[in-house]
């Protein structure tokens, strides 16, 4: 016999269905089953969410977070120990055109081009000893995002929703914001061999209207009442079918996700509508795609989205081979949004449980690029041997700098850190053992950290 919507919701409340009665009253819906339902981690978690601000193209460490007085001193001379091999030929040492300043109580030194970000250094751990295998964008992008140097492996966000589900069932669990695409594109947020439900949902944050951010979000043909009527009918027909089939989790799952989709329409419209923010907040974030991205990230994190990744821009804006002074403009465009995001997360009490990762796919050489590809020789080549990233919140020890590059900022020499280690540490804070978060595919267990990864205990609060 037919089951009415009311009856079904009543059953749902009793634990039969997929969603709690909260959903009826507008509180965040939490499902009790389904692939994206929140899952208990391996052990007690310090953090529950992740924001990954990706400064794509390769920001230069010696111009941002890794001051090198020796570089200034030897400006214009050859590096005493020679240049390391990178993608292109580099020449003499090139000092940073920017001053470094001590920031916060901790006194961590930060380049003058990041004044607002600098105010948060007491909450931030700078890892100054990052390294990756190759001085090329693609393998390094894959490594930071998917834990492998080649295409075909799931993205960190996909691993997180696979391992932890997500708290808000009315929004996707893994959002990727980029105006256009970074180099490589959607393969960076793929679910690969994990079920497709885990792939990142790309929001083109150059768009301003929620409907342009999420596909098929609204129905312009039907009134809400008409759509509700449609769904009620659909549900009754599906229930009749389910009964005849003698029950089936697959059929049940689709019935449930149809209801979630219905609610997502209003939840996403609200979550992604920046016009709901007061003027003074919009002003603090500033103008531009990245500012909008950071603000959208905050609104998504507030609503329980598991991971939000914001790419700085289309292509690879931070790839300044020609003229390192470009970094000043890029920082001017990203400093205020990052500062505002960190401030907001902190004042909302969310920073404690949100890991914020800020960085690019590699750093840049302290020596000037002198290849024929560079139009003018005032820039830096890719540097995989040593560079910096920032971590904050979610159980990370703030106000410290971990590891070091050599005197000129070329190579990580003290406590080198690989992206596998960063992933292992982040998973650890999220309550996951990186060696146990695995997926068996084609007869082998795969994981985000491949066959590496070490939890960096020294940077945990």
């Amino acid at each position, binding site marked *: 016999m037919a089951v009415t919507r009311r009856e079904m919701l009543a059953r749902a409340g009793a634990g039969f269905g997929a969603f709690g009665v909260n959903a009826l009253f507008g509180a965040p819906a939490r499902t009790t089953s389904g692939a994206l339902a929140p899952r208990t981690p391996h052990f007690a978690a310090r953090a529950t969410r992740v924001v990954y601000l990706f400064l794509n193209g390769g920001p230069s460490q010696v111009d941002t977070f890794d001051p090198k007085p020796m570089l200034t001193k030897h400006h214009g001379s050859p590096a005493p120990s020679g240049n390391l091999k990178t993608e292109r030929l580099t020449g003499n040492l090139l000092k940073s055109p920017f001053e470094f300043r001590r920031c916060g109580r901790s006194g961590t030194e930060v380049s003058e081009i990041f004044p607002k970000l600098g105010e948060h250094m007491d909450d931030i751990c700078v890892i100054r000893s990052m390294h990756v295998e190759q001085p090329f964008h693609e393998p390094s992008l894959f490594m930071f995002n998917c834990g492998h140097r080649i295409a075909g492996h799931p993205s960190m966000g996909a691993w997180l929703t696979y391992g932890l589900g997500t708290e808000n069932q009315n929004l996707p669990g893994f959002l990727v914001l980029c105006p256009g695409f970074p180099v490589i594109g959607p393969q960076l947020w793929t679910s690969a061999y994990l079920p497709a439900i885990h792939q990142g949902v790309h929001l083109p944050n150059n768009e301003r209207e929620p409907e342009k951010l999420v596909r098929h979000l609204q129905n312009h043909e039907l009134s809400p009442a008409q759509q509700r009527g449609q*769904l009620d009918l659909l549900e009754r027909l599906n229930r009749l079918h389910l009964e005849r089939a003698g029950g089936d989790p697959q059929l049940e799952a*689709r019935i449930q*996700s*149809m209801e979630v989709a219905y609610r997502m329409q209003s939840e996403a419209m609200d979550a992604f509508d920046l016009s709901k923010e007061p003027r003074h907040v919009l002003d603090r974030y500033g103008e531009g795609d990245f500012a909008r991205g950071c603000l959208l990230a905050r609104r998504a994190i507030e609503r329980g989205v598991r991971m939000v990744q914001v790419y700085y821009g289309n292509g690879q804006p931070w790839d300044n081979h020609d003229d390192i002074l470009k970094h000043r403009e890029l920082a001017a465009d990203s400093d205020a949004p990052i500062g505002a995001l960190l401030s907001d997360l902190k004042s909302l009490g969310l920073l404690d449980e949100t890991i914020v990762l800020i960085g690019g796919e590699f750093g840049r050489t302290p020596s000037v690029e002198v290849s024929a590809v560079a139009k003018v020789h005032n820039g830096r080549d890719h540097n995989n041997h040593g560079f910096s990233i920032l971590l904050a919140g979610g159980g990370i020890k703030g106000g410290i700098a971990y590891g070091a590059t*050599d005197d000129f900022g070329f190579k990580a020499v003290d406590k080198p850190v690989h992206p596998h280690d960063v992933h292992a540490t982040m998973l650890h804070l999220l309550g996951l053992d990186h060696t146990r978060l695995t997926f068996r595919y084609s007869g082998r267990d795969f994981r985000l950290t491949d066959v590496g990864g070490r939890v960096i205990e020294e940077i945990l609060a």
Partner: protein
Amino acid sequence: MRLGLALLAASLALGSDGKAGGEYFEMKVRPALANNCFSCHTSAKMGDLVMDSREALLRGGQSGPAVRPGDPDGSLLIQAVRQTHDRIKMPPGGRLPASDIEALERWIRDGAEWPEHASVSPAPAGLRIGEEQRAWWAFQPVRKPDPPPVKDEAWARTTIDRFVLARLERENLRPVRPADRRTLIRRASYDLTGLPPTPAEVDAFVADRSAEAFEKVVDRLLASPRYGERWGRYWLDIARYSDDKLNSTQDEPQPNVWRYRDWVIQAFNDDMPYDLFVKAQIVGDRMGDKEKYVAGLGFFANSPQFQEDRVDALGRGFLALTVACAQCHDHKFDPIPTRDYYSLLGIFRNTRADKFPLAPPEVVEAYESRKKAADERSKAVREFEDSQAKQLAEILAAQSPRYLKAVRALADLADERAIEEAARSQSLDRETLARWARYLGLETHEHPFLQRWREAAFDDGAFTARLLAAVAEKKRIDRENLIRLGGKDDDESVRVIEVLSLERDQYFLWRDLVSNERFGKFDSGILYYRGEKIDRFLAPQWKEHLAGLRAERDRLSDELPEEYPFLMSIADVEKPKPMRVHLRGSEDNLGEEAPPQFLTVLGDGEPRPFTNGSGRLELANAIASPENPLTARVAVNRIWGYHFGRPIVGTPGNFGKLGEAPTHPELLDYLAARLVELKWSQKALHREIMLSNAYALSAQSVEPNRTKDPDNKLVWRANRQRLDVEPMRDTLLFVSGELDERRGGEALEIGDDCNLRRTVYGFVSRRRLDSTLALFDFPNPVATSDARIHTATPLQQLYFLNSEFIQERAGAFALRLRSSARGDRERIREAYRILLQREPLAPELRLGLTYLASGQDAWRRYAQVLLSSNELLFVD
């Protein structure tokens, strides 16, 4: 902490005598040397030191021997890495981790033994392959087993049934009842064609009481060209087919690749024997009747990015072996030594991408030569324009003081009339003046030379001199760089040859004023007149000359025919190069030679190296052989899996140790043997499978079966399966009467409103997969894909709620019903017959009628509900 871990790992590798032996060397010493020293101290011989063998280290370089066995403190190598030597500190610009230094010390203390083998090339740690390894079930020859006895002889209609039933009876399970006829024809139609049966087809089958009724249905479906569109697509999953390349920064379509897709579809429709089908995809260019087969090479020509991918696709796709796992080390679980991996990789390294023209040679030649002529003429036009624009820019640069003065006098830099007036009164070029005004009006410039341009005291002359000096300097530098590059402009040369550049500020001055480079909102330096903008400055005879060049260019490019069609293929290189093992996957660390040959475990004893070209032909013969224990098993396992929703080996791309064991090993072997007996005809095998009673089971779930075998591994019922994205989208178009069944040809965007063709003809992108495909679990086309998975996500349901596609199909379906039946009741019945191949039940009819009474345009909304229903999207 870290140090402790490293020591532990190191001690594990020590030999039983506690000495640093071969394994210690491979685990600790060689990686340290390879990662830090080999890039400069192997072929590059920095400081005359070579470090890839014990002898070389003992010999040393300019500063003497690098290693004194037994004496780490006295060894130059150790002093250098400890950085205690007064002059030599290694590696440059860094320091080895303490664990590496310690490993080197220990190794030298223990005698600096370099494991035997060869200098740079010790064989990989010895994975022996013998009887024991070959005993794994998947490597055993296929033997056709005798059909087992069963208790319920009546149920076991075919031999296949005997294998299935015997297995069930062993567990005391009974199969459920057979499916009803409408369920069976729906299942068969979706299975073979990806589309539902029409009401007429259902009626005919239900009415046909003959014993061959279902056989007729199966034969009709197998003969349909829709069969290839359905099953060809599954093969395209394995072939990681895509219509573009995984380009990092921009879309890069592969305009001819669809010919491979069409070839695959046609091969299925023609029932090309599977062995030939496989062979064609490896070596179609070398087969007799090559026109028929060469298109198959698209399988490898369509490789996403790396040669390595080809080994992976070959291994998992044809043999269900994860050969690619042996890239860095011997396979951890299966008997695949690293050398086998490189033997196969070498075959692909010795092939190159090729075009196989589908036009007569004279057409190809004519096209190529006309293309060349058109390109040359285009270049001539561009070069002439550029040379004139450069000269003009210099002339205008010299006139800068006059323009600066004029702009300075403007009250409003955007006032076009004032600009025009100033140009006229001072005999300046109006556009040039306007450009200067716009440029000077920018808030900032990248160079500092115009910061005070507004001030009366600004020295226009000095500025101009600086500008002209920059122009002159740039010319000098360009000439010098031409010499330095020696005319080379390949990717490598431009990256690694040191050239000169203007000093930064000077560069931006040059760029902004006289270069042809775009910056900000300017499409070139402001004094550079690009393309046709140069014309008005030219003397009449030069203008005429240029017009002539352009007319010639336009004529040549207009007359250029469309490029001749070709197949993307591969060919052997002229001189195959020997392949060596890359130790730990690193090209800097070469090991023993890996001659082209087949997998050791699949032959008897040592494999015989291939001798014919790259070795592709011999490789293809080794795979497409009835003797190969994997090829037929892998093929039948997939066919079974797509029919039953679960293959016999649950990991269709991995028959190795980590794959799943077959649920029905004898059945698998029986089917494999049958495939060979049936002359590798896949259609004949479909037929045998589909005419079994096992295939015809209902999807009903019953006890105790559900408790004993919840995943239905033993086939006691049919598995309910959600439609894959292609049959899903195709069904929506088919039932609404809109499906465009033209076959083959160039791919169309799936998101294009006008694209009403079957989904298999939609554009598949590696760079950005169509959103509908991505939403509904289409396999990622960057790697070979084993199986489809199905998810149920809210974003998918938003598609059913709101997408234009679904609303348009609903509208068309409603329209179709209006013209084909009278009255709501009849139309509802017709809708159920078309969509679900059955009559509506009473409550369904009642719900429909009530809903339709609810208001205007209700039919369209009702149709959308039916198109979104679970029963439509799942096949029992």
